[in-house]
Structures are given as C-alpha cells and as structure tokens.
C-alpha cells in the first residue's frame, strides 16, 4: 500500500469489457472510471445484467479488462499476469459471495483456516476459532456446510473473508440467497466487522437497503456508470 494514488486504494479508469460469442460481440462494461479511498464503503448497484459482477471481478483482479486500467493497492494490474494479480490479492483482499462458496468437504473451521494457511500466517486454527466465535458459530466448528443453514454458511464465509485481515473486502450480492431477516443480520455482521477492522468494502447488490448502508453508491446501467451518490 506504499504507492497509493492520492489515498485511493482502488482506482479504475476507462474500464471496458467486451466478450465475443457466436452471436457477435457484447460490451458488458464501457468506459467505467471509479476511485475508492482506503476505508471507504462503496455499493455497486444496478439491475441484473448491468455489469456489476463484471466490474467487481475487474476491480479485484480476477479478470483482465479489454481496455482501461485498474490500480489495486498501489499495483497497476494491467502490467501483471494472472499470477501477478494473485500476488496482489494475497493477504490484501477478501471475498464474500452470493453462493457462499464454502468447500463442502471441509468443516466450518477448516474453511476459515484455508486462506490463513495459504497466506502462511501463524496459528491458523486459533485465528479461525476466534473469528467463528465472533460471527456466533463457536459451537459449530466441526460442522460441514451441508449441516448449516444458509445464514450460517454466509457467516462462515464472512469469517473466512476477514481471516487474513484484508485491506479490501469484495462482496458479491452477499444477501442474495438469504431471507430478509437473515440478510439484515448478515449485513449487520459485515458492517460491524468492517468497522472493527477498518476494511475498505466494495459490494455489489441490487438490494437498496443494503446499498444505503454504504458511504457511496455507484449505479450501473448497461455497463456504464450513470450516477454516483453521494
């Protein structure tokens, strides 16, 4: 984080993503420019197919843009290959997904330990236990994902996302698969942890209530930024 541009942890300029299929080419994103400050919480909103998830993928370096550039945590992602981008993500980026993405063969504890082990941080089990206790699952450590409810699974996923103390947390429709009550609890948890750990939060949602909890909202429509609030 030494080379942050004007305190921006993420900076995207003129991002475009075009895909080619048998039915011709399709512009999923065009000319998106966006800057996010350290510690800021930003919601990317829009209807289905507006390009929200694509933008999230590009910002997180999971995919490369067709045009434009992304600087993440001071590193120009365009200059890097996939492995280089992975290095930037390592330890600095956490994810929460709509479909939780827990590994079915691993227990809750093992799922949370995984990124800690991968980053080579000390005592992965203690860290994972603490976090699971923090999200209220201290009693369910040895349960497998299929033995947990949707809300519980997402709490495990949130614990996992914070496990390596990332600087940035990307969340893709984190409440999309949950009922309203559970969704609200998950949002509370996400924002509480975000607050506690001073993480930059970028989340994709079409849930206005969730979006309203973020400091800033970026509206996408047909791959273009149409509005930024405030």
């Amino acid at each position: 984080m030494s080379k942050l541009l004007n305190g921006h942890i993420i900076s995207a300029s003129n991002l475009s993503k075009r895909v080619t299929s048998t039915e011709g080419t399709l512009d999923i994103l065009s000319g998106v420019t966006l800057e996010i400050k350290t510690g800021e919480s930003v919601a990317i909103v829009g209807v289905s197919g507006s390009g929200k998830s694509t933008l999230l993928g590009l910002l997180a370096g999971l995919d490369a843009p067709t045009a434009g550039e992304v600087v993440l945590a001071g590193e120009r992602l365009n200059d890097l290959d996939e492995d280089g981008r992975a290095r930037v993500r390592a330890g600095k980026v956490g994810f929460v997904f709509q479909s939780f993405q827990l590994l079915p063969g691993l227990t809750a504890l093992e799922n949370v330990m995984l990124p800690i082990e991968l980053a080579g941080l000390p005592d992965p089990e203690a860290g994972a236990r603490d976090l699971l206790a923090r999200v209220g699952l201290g009693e369910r450590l040895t349960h497998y994902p299929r033995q947990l409810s949707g809300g519980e699974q997402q709490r495990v996923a949130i614990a996992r996302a914070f496990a390596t103390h990332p600087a940035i947390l990307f969340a893709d429709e984190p409440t999309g698969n949950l009922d309203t009550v559970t969704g609200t609890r998950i949002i509370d948890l996400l924002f509480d942890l975000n607050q506690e750990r001073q993480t930059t939060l970028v989340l994709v949602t079409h849930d206005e209530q969730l979006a309203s909890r973020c400091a800033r909202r970026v509206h996408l429509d047909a791959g273009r930024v149409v509005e930024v609030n405030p």
Partner: protein
Amino acid sequence: MIRRARLGLRLLARDWRAGELHILIAALVIAVGAVTAVGFFNERVSRGMAQQSADMLGADLLVLGSQPADPAWVGEAVARGLRHAEGIEFASVAVRGEALQLASVRAVTDRYPVRGAVRTAERLYGEDAPTPGVPARGTVWVEPRLMHALALAIGDRIEIGEAQFVVARVVTYEPGRSGNFFALAPRVLMNRDDVDATRVIQPGSRVTYGNAFAGPEPVIAAYRAWIAPRLAAHFQLIDARDGNRTIARALERVERYIGLTSLLAVVLAGVAIAMAARRYSARHYDMSALLRSFGASQRDIVWLYAPQLLVLGLVGGLLGCALGWAGQWAIYGLMHDFFPVRLPAPGARAAIVGLITGFVTLAGFALPPVLRLKRVPPLRVLRRELVPLPASAWLVYGAAATAILALLWYYTGSARLTASVLLGGLAGAVALGAVALFLLYASRRLRGHVGVAWRFGFNNLWRRAQASVGQILAFGFALMAMALIALVRTDLLSSWQQQLPADTPNHFAFNILSDDVARIERFFADRSIRSQALYPMVRGRLTAIDGVAVTQAVTKEEGRNDEALRRELNLTWAAELPSDNKIVSGAWFTRQTPAGMVSVEEKLAKKLGIGEGARLTFSMGGATLEARVASIRSVQWDSFHPNFYMIFSPGTLDDYAATYLTSFHLTPAQKPQLTELVRSFPAVTVLELDLVLKQVRTILAQVTLAVEFVLVFVLAAGLAVLYAALQASLDERYYEGALMRALGASRRQLRSAQVAEFAALGLLAGLLAAGATEAIAYLVYARLFELEYHFKWLVWLIVPLAGMLLIGFAGYVGTRRVVSRSPLSVLREL
C-alpha cells in the same frame, strides 16, 4: 513451497475424510494390485513351472558334447556354487548268457540327477517311487524293455563290455529322457566309476559326454553367459526350455498371456485412474478458484496438488502391493498341490515394479487432469460456469502415451512390439471414437421405435455426446480387454487339450519287422488299442543339396550345427499326409507322383535353405539316394505321433531294409497288455511315455489355473473402469435427478430412464468392443500365440449383450442414490 506442500497434504487428509479420494485410490489399488499379483505370480509360478521343466530335463543347464568337457568349465561352475553331475552316454550290448540286446548306457556320478529324480521299482511292473542316489558300483538299474529282452529278474547278472553287473532296480522314469523319444535302445544306468572296467569306450567310439548343472536362476543365467562363448561347435547347451517342446511352448505362451494380461490390466486401470482423476479435478475447480481468488499463484496450486498425487501414489501403491501379495498367496494356496516342492516366497521385485507402475500410471493418467486445476480462472468464484481451459491435447495424450509406452516396453521387452501396439492403439482409438460417434448418431434414429425409458436413455446419451463417446470408448475398451483375455484363455486351453487329448499316444513301438506289421495291427485291433498308422523307417544321412555337399551348401551357422546333419535321420515314405502335418508349399503326393520325390519339414527346410524342387542326396548304409523336393510340410512335433523330417513318395525306399514304428494309447486297465505285446513281438522295442505325459499334463493343468487367475485381475480392472466411469457422471446425475424429481418425475421413471441409458451405453460399447476384439484377436492370435483364428460370431452376440446387462446393472446399482437422496439435500449442496 514446503509450506504449500504441507497444506496440500492437510487438504488431502480432509479430502480423504470427505470420501473424495476413494475412487482414485480404489483404481490405483486395483492397478497396482493387478500388476503386483501378476508379477508375484509370474515370479513364483513360472519359476515353479520352470523348475518342473528342469526336473524333466534333470538339470537347469546341460552341456552335451562328443568330447569330455573342459575341467575348467566344471571348476568355474562349482566355484559359482552350482551343483554338478556328470554323465557319459554310449551304446553297448548287454549280454546275459546267449541273449544280446543293444542298450543305451548312461554312467552317472554321485549327484545325478541335479534336478528331479529317477523313479525306480524293486521288480518289473512293481510300484515305483523317486529314488535318490545312483547305482552302487557293480550294479545297474535297467528299463523294463531290457528285462524283457534278456528275460531278466532283479539280482541277475549282465555283462557290458568286459565288466559284469548285478541288476539292482527297474528304471521307470528318468529325467532328460523325454526330449529324446527316439533314443531307441533300452536304458542301462550305471555308476560313472564302473565305465573304465567295461573298456567299451575306445578312441573313435560314439560317446556323449553330459555335464548337468543346477542352482539359483541368476547364477545359472550368469554361468550360461560365461560358458556359451567358450563352447566349440560340437558342444550343445540345453536348458529346461529346450528339453521339452510341449512344455516350452506352453510356458512361452503363458508368459505372453501373462504379459498381455497384466498390460491390459494396467492400461484398464489407467483409464479408471484417468476418469477418477478427472472427477477429482472437476470437484476441485471451486477450491482452486477460491484459492486463486485468495491470492494463490499457479505454482502454489501445483505445489498443493503434486504432493497429494505423490502421497496417493504411495498409499495406493502400498495397498495395491498388499492386495497383490494377498492375491498371490490365495492362489498359491489353491495351487500348491500342483507344485513339486515348496516354492520360495516371492521377492521384492514384483512389489517394486508394482509401485513404479503405480506412479507411472498416476503420472501418465492423473497428472494432466490434476494439473488442469492450476488453470482454473479465479473469476469462477463469481461465474461458476467458467471451467479451466482444457489442458493441451499434447499434454494429456502425450503423458498417457508416454506412460503406456514405458510400461509396454517394460512388459514386452520389445521395441517393435511396443511401437506397433502403441501406433495401432492410437489409430484404433481415433477410429473407434469415430465409430462410437456414429453408433451414437445411429442410436438416435432408433428413438422413434422404442419405449419412453429407452427414448429418454438414448436422448441423454446424445445430449452429452462428448462425454458419451468417452464413456463408450472406456466401457468398450474394458469389455474388449475382458473379451479378448477370455477368448485367448479359452482357445489356449482348448489348444492344449487338443494337443494332448485323452487318447494321446503314450507308448511308441519301434523295430517292428515288416513281417510283423499285419500281426501287430491285428494285435491292436483285437484288444481295442488305439494306434497310429505304422510308418516304415530307414536310417540315412543327408549329404548334399543340389549336388553341393551340405557342409558347404548350408551357409547359416545354426543350419550347419543342426542335429539333422550330424546324425542319421529317420526316413519314411507315405501315401497319405499324416493327420497332424500340413503342406506349407508345393503339393502332397498323388497316385501319379513317381518315386524319388520327398516332402521336407518346414523348419529344417528353412534352416538348411531347402526349397521346393531342390535335389537332395542321402547316404544310406553306403548307398546313395537322390530325391527331389515336392513339398514343404509343417509338423506338430509335440503331438506324440510318429513324425519325420523327410517323407518320401511311395516306392522311393523300396530297395532299402525298413523297420516300422507306431505310437499307441494304453489306458491304465490296458497296461498289463504291454507285457503280452513285448512277449509276442520280442524284436519290438517299446517306449513308455505315460509318466512323461502325466507330467506334461500336470504342468498344463497348472498353466490353466494360472491363466484363469490372471483373468480375474483384468476383470477387476475392467470393473474399476466401469465404477470410475459411473462415478464420473454422478454429480451431474444427482443434480439432474434432483431437478427432475422436483419437477415431478417419479422415482420409477427416473430409474428406468437411467437403466435404459446405461443399457444403451453398454450395448453400444459392446458392439464397439466386439469389432475391436475381432480385429485385435486376429493379430494377437497370429503374432503372439501362434493360434489359428476363426471368426467368432458368438463375440458379436455375447459381448454387446453382456455389455448391456453388466453396464445396465452397474448403472442401476451405481446411481441408486441419485433417486434415493432427497432432491432438497442435493440441490442445497450444489
């Protein structure tokens, strides 16, 4: 990297607990188990069989010569720790009073025979038993024929040369006798130290000096390599395999069969491993994508999974070795009665080969799909439909081909065979893939004519055309391997049975005078004794080919040293082609064929460079005979029928005095009639082969069991493929099944659709397998087993039917859970 590897191993342990690895490890265990059991088996049983052959020869290695062996050769053998015995063989007349009989004397030293045992009885036709030791000085052991010829009883005295001997025992079986049925004179066995006293051996006498050696296999092999270049042309090196053609051929074929079988088992298991690894890989896409999103590099992913494969290879390999070891003991338990002595425990070699084979198979078949994991795009965490770019076809097929190449090379030991099998296999796979696709397409046309379940089944196959072609190929290959191995087994066994049917002649009668021919034929007919035709026999030596002396005419080294040139041949004439002979070129004699034509045995003709139309000159007791080659003939030497290198056209040998010979079969109940035969025809020499035949049959029985045993492993590997292929599509089936049930399909509907799909898959695979079996069997029979191949129409019926039933049933059992699990639990997991 160490950290990554350790994490990888922890993940492996978690995968193991979660049951993700069971199929992969099961396939690996079967592969290694099959190879190791076959290896252990090969090592032990073929050693056992070789030992029995050695027992029949009386030695592991025999050096025969017309001169005494160099004492340094024996010294070297003894220094190497080999057991040694010496024998001198010569013809001499045994005399008792006024009676004379030419005998074949063998004088032996203390340790004779170094392998096997001489069987003797205390009186004529008494109970015989293996007898250790050799005749004491001043005594001889003699064959029953000599007892008859000289009207001997135990304790009587006979003269040989200038010495007198007491007849101490009756020899009923003697190692080393089986290979030389035409050693006409009855045997007298004496002590080596008595030879000088007989004064029979004089300069110029025809004497064979034999030195027999026995010891551990590697020492024998090393000694063989040491002595071979030191032997002059008049020495001959014989090992157990040369001793008996029937056994040698059976051994050779069983080794090839074992080689082919273990190879097929490995390749089959390789297919199973590849399928299991593909599924393992596919089930780890999410994990890889997630790890990549957490910041893991491609190298990290490799370091995560490569050690997993290593550990899997080790665990699967060790379990496989244990299975192979257990399987081998089980079969040993079944067969140990067949072995003459307790076999040594198998060595570590098979286990090491098994382990290496496991790793090579894993590297060739599992590494490419697992390496594919490093290419999983991290974006998959957001878009689950993304799958990694397929690994380069070069990598996938290259790795598998390299693995198969390495294994083929190891198992066949032949670069040419390896290359042809590999190229043929690749071309075959492409062609079969195309045929599978065509069959699939053709099956679509059937949809309108079958019930709803079948329609659904065929539809499913077509919908997943690519996966279906893969499965048809895998199942087809498994069925083909099983069918091929079963087919070869059946034909090998029946060829052995045909070779030695129950009424195989077990006695030879020689020296039948022409005046006795009609009487002896009546003798056989009156007693319902089955006998072969009587062949006249004249002794003669081949001296020239097309007017050039054979020593100059024959350029090939092996030809010049051939027995046929060095001793007198048994010549015969016949109007009818013997039943077990076949004309290879030219034509058999007709009524119009003039005298002076000859038919020559194929292998001898080849060695001596004799072709159709060649002019052969024979020397027969001072007279010279010329004949032109009318045909070349193949001869089944191991049929126990009288057989000849040279058969002349009728009339050619009329001017020469002939005796007749035949072979006949005596049942145990008819055995006493042998005495009657010998008494009625005192001049006739009878050779008893029933003990030899019994031993040959014992060995063939072992070989049969062995062949059946290895078949089990190919079946197991085939089932592993079946299992892995079923598992490969299980996830998708769970999901589709859950969806269909959620949409209202009944369990029964789902189940019948699934059974129909698998049965259709089995049917198509079976059709493919039947075609492939015909084609490959045709090659394998001719090239590997020297068996005649006939179109097997039954294959076309049985294999598709068996495929349909087997795969349909396996599909039913394997996918039972698809309809038994609650749709909700399935959908929630996915």
